[in-house]
């Protein structure tokens, strides 16, 4: 069964890399370019998982994560934050905002596919 994944990043390069990695799998991909748009798309599209960058204009990944967790209709969606900072404090802030997991840039395709398999059961 195909799963819907919402990719969120203001970087076109990051989005293209993620799309290339995931387009070979059983995934339908939708895209948002900042946290605000991510919340809107998540509410409208109800993705099975959200892969979201942290540093973005308008609304960052932490804030978007908190907003999604505060809403009944998006609370249960797994969120993997994509961060350029793997330090403990940054990871902790991510989990405090309600993310389910995190992955660091540059994204390792095997690591990403493995994390998706954990959440989506492939």
């Amino acid at each position, binding site marked *: 069964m195909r799963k819907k994944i919402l990719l969120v990043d203001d970087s*076109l*390069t990051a989005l293209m890399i993620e799309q290339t990695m995931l387009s070979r799998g059983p995934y339908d991909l939708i895209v948002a370019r900042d946290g605000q748009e991510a919340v809107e798309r998540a509410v409208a599209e109800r993705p099975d998982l959200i892969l979201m960058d942290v540093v973005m204009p308008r609304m960052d990944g932490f804030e978007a994560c908190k907003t999604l967790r505060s809403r009944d209709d998006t609370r249960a969606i797994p969120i993997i934050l994509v961060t350029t900072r793997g330090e403990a404090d940054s990871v902790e802030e991510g989990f405090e905002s309600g993310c389910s997991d995190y992955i660091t*840039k540059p994204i390792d395709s095997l690591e990403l596919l493995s994390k998706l398999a954990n959440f989506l059961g492939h």
Partner: protein
Amino acid sequence: MTDPAPEPPIRRATHGEDADNDALRARVEALEREVEDLRAENDELVNRYVEVESLVSKLSSLFVASVRLQDAVGREAVFDALRDILVNILGVAAYVVYELAEGPQQLAPVASLEAGASATRPIAIGEGIEGTVAVSGKRFVADMPDPWAGPPPGQPVACIALTAAGRPLGVLSIGKLLGHKPGLLAHDLDVLDFLGAHAGPALFRATHPATEDGGER
């Protein structure tokens, strides 16, 4: 007290039963060998999968970098694409792009990220690692016995020449990688070489839009 019941005598297997047991034992051993073979085959497939996935990932990175540079119209767009590639594909935290200035033979910083004073200081051709790379065109990668400690003081992590049609246009100097990235891997060096050959022409085309050949064919 009654005597314990005598143990039943051990019955010797008949000749026919011995044969059955031998056959079953042989079958079990054959199945165990088959399981071992399948396990080895599975391990090989997993290794092959990891190998292929890594190769696909590497090619994807080059493809995306190529598309981003090709699509960039104007100098700022080229610099934006370059920053995006360096951060998202190579995991670079600090860098400076120097361009060969017209007139005095020096490299002028034209784009940077988190580079501090290096972002404003021009470098004479032949001076230091950047100036040397601009002359030789040869890629420099710092020797980092302990990758987590970074390069020796005063050295960049890596430096490449940006060229178009064999002419040096400038250099890209990488000062620092993201904190969780221990060093440049083999496929990172491939991306760096790709940038050396393709970012130069993209920059040339953006700077001289009327000129047809940016040097890349």
